[in-house]
């Protein structure tokens, strides 16, 4: 059975189809691992064995009769707790929703369930996806499986840790400023944020609506391609969902990289990147050249403004998006209060954690009377400059590459005292969200190699709009030539 925890989705699908293993056996295998290992990792925050096994039995039934079975039928996965999942507690990592049992399914949850995938449980995350270390979760931080004294990254830290520890073969994540890519990098996984509008946001609890996008997290690009094909697609319930023909994101995986032009933004390779990260990224680029790709220097002159612009736009949208959490129709209500405003103010003060409150307050401020033009409008104009930079760069390259994160996973508490330092963890990922571009992170080596536990480094690949298939091709060809993505943290098997 131990080979099953390392198997690719394709291998799992084949094993299920060949009846070498049943969906129930597979789900049980992972549920047992979760029971054993999750207490030390805190990746899962909601489990429901009966419900999971019922789904697995249904998948087995469908595999038996063959009707409606897909390549993913019977394969387990886990959902970031930002996705509304009917009948499951959906907390978004917050005390505010500690007791919220969702009465409906997110579009992504529906689609993956329709493909026959089995839900193992709900994954820990930074509260309302606001964080880069998973330290803001009301349910406690997630530990990095490579070194439990370090953060797994965030906000999809539970998703990353669960896959890295082989508690789930795959997971969903969301990415507003790097929340899929950064934890994927810090935990040695492959994670993909699609083009804005490719995956429906319906049922995904909003953080910053114009930046949020759901995507897959798994061990390999091949797995991500399969998952993305199942997750993506037009949804009438999301006005920003794009009406495009369905895509097979695996279609270009096996194409060689000869002639692929890789843009290297000079701004991504300046100071600020740790030496060990730089070494791993440079080595990966050398590998790409070996595979037939060429590299070309490009410039994203405004990318230095992406973090400050993001910290105007995202909190502004968040301050409004989170107003619905008022203790009236669902969610936390303070046990004692006076009048209506007191009920609101106490419920929100007690229901939200410090980082969420900070962002709501910043967002409220930048939208308030007299400051809107100076902050919000200004940031939106700069957002256009940042997007235009990418447009220019993609005239001379097919994909852009660079580091995902400036450093390997840092220790708990290292950046919690200074919000701005934490915000800078996403310095290389945020600009793609502002531009609406797809981006992914693939494992490309290890840093902190002098330590007992060397930590994974992620290579970021940024695609042009709707360039997911090309990005995945680049990642898959690299993963065929390297084995970083197959590495597993020690002491967990």
């Amino acid at each position, binding site marked *: 059975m131990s080979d099953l925890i390392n198997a690719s989705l394709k291998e799992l699908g084949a094993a299920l189809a060949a009846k070498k293993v049943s969906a129930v056996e597979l789900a049980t295998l992972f549920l047992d691992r979760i029971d054993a290992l999750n207490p030390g990792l805190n990746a899962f925050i909601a489990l429901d064995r009966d419900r999971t096994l019922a789904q697995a039995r249904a998948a087995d039934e469908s595999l038996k009769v063959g009707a409606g079975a897909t390549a993913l039928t019977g394969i387990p996965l886990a959902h970031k707790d930002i996705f509304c999942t009917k009948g499951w507690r959906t907390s978004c990592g917050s005390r505010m929703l500690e007791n919220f049992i969702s009465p409906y399914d997110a579009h992504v949850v529906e689609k993956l369930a329709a493909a026959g995938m089995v839900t193992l449980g709900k994954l820990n995350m930074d509260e309302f996806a606001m964080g880069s270390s998973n330290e803001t979760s009301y349910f406690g931080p997630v530990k990095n499986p490579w070194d439990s004294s370090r953060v797994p990254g965030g906000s999809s830290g539970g998703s990353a840790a669960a896959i890295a520890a082989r508690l789930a073969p795959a997971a969903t994540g969301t990415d507003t400023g790097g929340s899929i890519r950064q934890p994927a990098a810090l935990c040695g996984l492959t994670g993909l944020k699609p083009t804005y509008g490719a995956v429906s946001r319906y049922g995904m609890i*909003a953080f910053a609506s114009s930046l949020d996008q759901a995507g897959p997290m798994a061990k390999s690009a091949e797995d991500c391609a399969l998952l993305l094909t199942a997750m993506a697609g037009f949804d009438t*319930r999301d*006005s920003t969902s794009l009406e495009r023909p369905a895509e097979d994101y695996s279609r270009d995986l096996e194409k060689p990289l000869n002639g692929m032009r890789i843009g290297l933004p000079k701004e991504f390779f300046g100071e600020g990147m740790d030496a060990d990260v730089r070494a791993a990224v440079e080595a990966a680029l050398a590998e790409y050249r070996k595979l037939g790709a060429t590299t070309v220097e490009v410039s994203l002159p405004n990318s230095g403004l992406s973090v400050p612009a993001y910290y105007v736009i995202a909190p502004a949208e968040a301050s*409004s998006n989170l107003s619905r*959490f*008022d203790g009236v*129709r669902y969610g936390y209500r303070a046990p004692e209060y006076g009048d209506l405003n007191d009920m609101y103010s106490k419920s929100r003060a007690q229901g939200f954690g410090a980082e969420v409150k900070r962002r709501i307050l910043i967002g409220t401020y930048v939208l308030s009377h007299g400051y809107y033009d100076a902050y*919000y409008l200004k940031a939106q104009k700069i957002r256009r400059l940042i997007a235009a930079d990418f447009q220019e760069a993609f005239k001379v390259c097919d994909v852009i590459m660079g580091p995902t994160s400036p450093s390997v996973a840092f220790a708990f508490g290292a950046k919690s005292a200074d919000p701005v330092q934490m915000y800078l963890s996403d310095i290389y990922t945020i600009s793609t969200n502002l531009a609406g571009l797809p981006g992914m992170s693939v494992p490309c080596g290890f840093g902190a190699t002098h330590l007992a536990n060397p930590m994974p480094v992620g290579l970021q690949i940024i695609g042009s709009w709707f360039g997911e298939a090309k990005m995945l091709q680049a990642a898959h060809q690299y993963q065929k030539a390297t084995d970083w993505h197959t590495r597993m943290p020690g002491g967990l098997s």
Partner: protein
Amino acid sequence: MNWEVVIGLETHAQLQTKSKIFSGSSIAFGAEPNVQANAVDIALPGVLPVLNREAVVCAIKFGLAVGATIAPRSVFARKNYFYPDLPKGYQISQFEIPVVQGGGLSIRVGAGDTATEKFVHLTRAHLEEDAGKSLHEDFHGKSGIDLNRAGTPLLEIVTEPDMRSSAEAVAYARALHALVQWIGICDGNMQEGSFRCDANVSVRRPGEPLGTRREIKNLNSFRFMQQAIDFEVQWQINEITEGRAIRQATVLFDPDTGETRSMRSKEDAHDYRYFPDPDLLPLEIGADWIAEVESGLPELPQAMQARFQAEYGLSAYDAAILTASRAMADYYVAAVAVAGGANGKAVANWIMGELAARLNKGDMDVAASPISAAQLAGLIQRIADNTISNNIAKKVFEALWNGEGKSADEIIEKQGLKQITDTGAIEALVDEVLAANQKSVEEFRAGKEKAFNALVGQAMKATKGKANPQQVTDLLRKKLGA
């Protein structure tokens, strides 16, 4: 001391769609609390709005009807504030770029020939969602929230501060009320809150800059609007006269006391933090869509008034009355279609005279008239072709009203009301009357004109009014050598 009153109106017209503006919930009135509030309406985490096409069609219709610019690209914005009937903590509205820009409404202030015309300019009209309702009956000292109304599509129609009296404000509100029903975008039901007005009122000495305004919220009848504005104006004048400055405020009108009072809940400093809703993309309306909506739009009241004056010789006042509502105009047009254009004036007179009087007496709308437009037209045709006299026609009208027959012809036939026009028969009758009323004949010959009328009356009485009065008169004069 002379004071000038300055009034601007903001009207919320509930649009006649089937579903809500951003969700597929029904907007039918009167359902059990919260059964028409779906996941989007109660703002569950993760839900998203999608714009109802029909709500946009309603906005286009309105823009066309008031001669406004339909914005080729307009933007939905969030208006942020906390209130329990506002589930998202923000209202989706339009702020910087509304869908309807400019335009205006011609109104008539006063009645009859003394009425004056005035043009009220519109600033804008924008699409937005309604809030739910807070019910204040006592739930152990708490309020109950019903979100059935949350997300109901509204068109907020904003005027320039063009009105100078409560009468003008009411005339505008009535004209707008008629127009939105006319073009079929709002049912106009004020009791159910489908048409609600807020009045911004200030006073100033003529020539001075605008005074500080106070906003009277939720005026749901024209009578209350008049009373509220009149009270507010007097109150403001008193305040200023007594040396107290007016402070900007939101006030409510209390129909029981006839007074306006400040709303406590709106006293907090508010800052709505408008910004473009990231969940909704810009609304684009192309010329082809506007043309398509325009082709389906009914003839508008102003155009119809001009046509009635030109084609049927109606006065401006009559034309205005007959186009005061779509139902009235429909009735008139249908009646003229049967009676013929030559009877256009007569049809107008009958509708505004006999029919209006009966309807008023029964407090009924013309749409509910027991006499159909075709029936009234049939009656008028019989007057025109001398089958019956005007007096007999009133009897026939009464009979039609009471349902005594299906048509004027049937009643005339059944009740034998056909006018006697046979000259021989009338001559014999006249001879009889002259013979039986020698005294009156003498008096007439002595110069008493009244005696002649008595003779006509006798002749009519003898035929139960059926003789053609003109023929009777002519023959009598001839026989008396007058």
